């Protein structure tokens, strides 16, 4: 198993539980908006501390509440493509792309900037500032930035959100190529059934768990 995840996350009175094992390939966390799918990704990335549980990725324990393990995000090596991209507004596209690349040890890198810009078709954008990019362009840069940090897996949060029909198709092809050509395991959050049916090797339903007792 590549992902072994069993966590309970408390977020503002709502409890989200994720308990699943998944092989490499693309695993979709599927559920209605507000179910807490993003919280599960945040927990895997180390940006949100679960109340309890255990997160193992590729045999490496990232979080274990009982053993007191909680690796900081910078040591987890999970590439995260955020729903809002979160490109650094004060850096050019090129500097955004190499942000993570500079920080990982030589041996952990598996893609060069040239390969990434070629793979994503963003060579003409390198000197631009993020605010000048269209939605599809920014999404491709965000994917490139995550790939260049030499991740062992990719976390994608609604990567087709806020895109028009043509851009959706374009980004979906990129994701398929990450899955099939780069063979990078992906945890993929979506609320769109057609998208999940097309992309996912495995689907994990996520719904917010037990409501607080006061709330019937």
């Amino acid at each position, binding site marked *: 198993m590549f992902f072994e995840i069993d966590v309970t996350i408390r977020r503002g009175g709502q409890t989200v539980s994720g308990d699943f094992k998944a092989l490499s390939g693309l695993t979709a966390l599927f559920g209605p908006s507000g179910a807490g799918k993003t919280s599960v990704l945040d927990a895997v990335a180390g940006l949100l501390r679960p109340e309890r549980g255990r997160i193992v990725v590729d045999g490496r324990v990232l979080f274990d509440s009982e053993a007191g393990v909680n690796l900081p995000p910078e040591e987890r090596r*999970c590439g995260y493509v955020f729903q*809002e991209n*979160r490109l650094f507004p004060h850096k050019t596209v090129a500097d955004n792309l190499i942000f993570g690349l500079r920080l990982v040890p030589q041996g952990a890198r598996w893609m060069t900037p040239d390969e990434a810009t070629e793979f994503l078709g963003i060579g003409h954008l390198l000197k631009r500032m993020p*605010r000048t990019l269209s939605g599809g362009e920014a999404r491709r840069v965000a994917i490139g930035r995550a790939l260049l940090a030499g991740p062992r897996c990719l976390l994608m949060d609604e990567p087709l959100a806020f895109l028009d029909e043509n851009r959706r198709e374009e980004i979906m092809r990129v994701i398929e190529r990450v899955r099939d050509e780069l063979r990078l395991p992906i945890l993929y959050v979506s609320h769109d059934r057609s998208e999940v049916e097309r992309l996912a090797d495995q689907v994990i339903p996520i719904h917010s768990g037990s409501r607080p007792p006061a709330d019937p």
Partner: protein
Amino acid sequence: MILSEAEWEIVALSLRVSFLAILAALPIAFALAWVLARKRFAGKVLLDALVHLPLVLPPVVTGWLLLIAFGVNGPIGRLLSDWFGVTLIFRWTGAALAAAVMALPLMVRAMRLSLEAVDPKLEGAARSLGAGRWRTFFEVTLPLASPGIVAGMVLGFARSIGEFGATITFVSNIPGETRTLPLAIYSTLQLPGSEAAVARLAVISVVLSLGALVLSEVLARRSGYGRGGHVL
């Protein structure tokens, strides 16, 4: 307008006092802004109020409190002179302390606002890309907050250049040592037939303050990465 030697002395002293005040206040102001923007703790309201105190107190009272604390027999003043042989009272360094205390609230406010405007989600993104806390701070948080930090320094500088009440109360009005521009204007006003001299000093004052403002706009625009980084 060519400055006389006496005027140069006043301007140089004012600049020296204000630069020292801002440099000394900068790390303290930034630390306070950081704590107030990012941390939650008991007594935060109290700290916030304390930082803002010099803004709302009559400057004379601030100067008097400094006199009590840093005077020859004051608790801090005695400590400084016993341990380091440093006296602040009636010295230009004391004028800088008074200016720093008066400038601090303005600096903290501007820096706090800019730190609060930095999206913590961007810091999370940096962490997920392999950056530790410090690298994230220096590569993401600090550059994004820099227009506000510059703004805070300029506001603080302008406030320091104009400081009067706390300064004259704490370190008196000694020519060449603590007689900064506003104090010099005040002293000159006491002399009969001094209208022209006062006018000259007033013009110098306006030029200095405007200069600081223009410089800060230039700096903010340069670091504004296209979002229109305005200081004011």
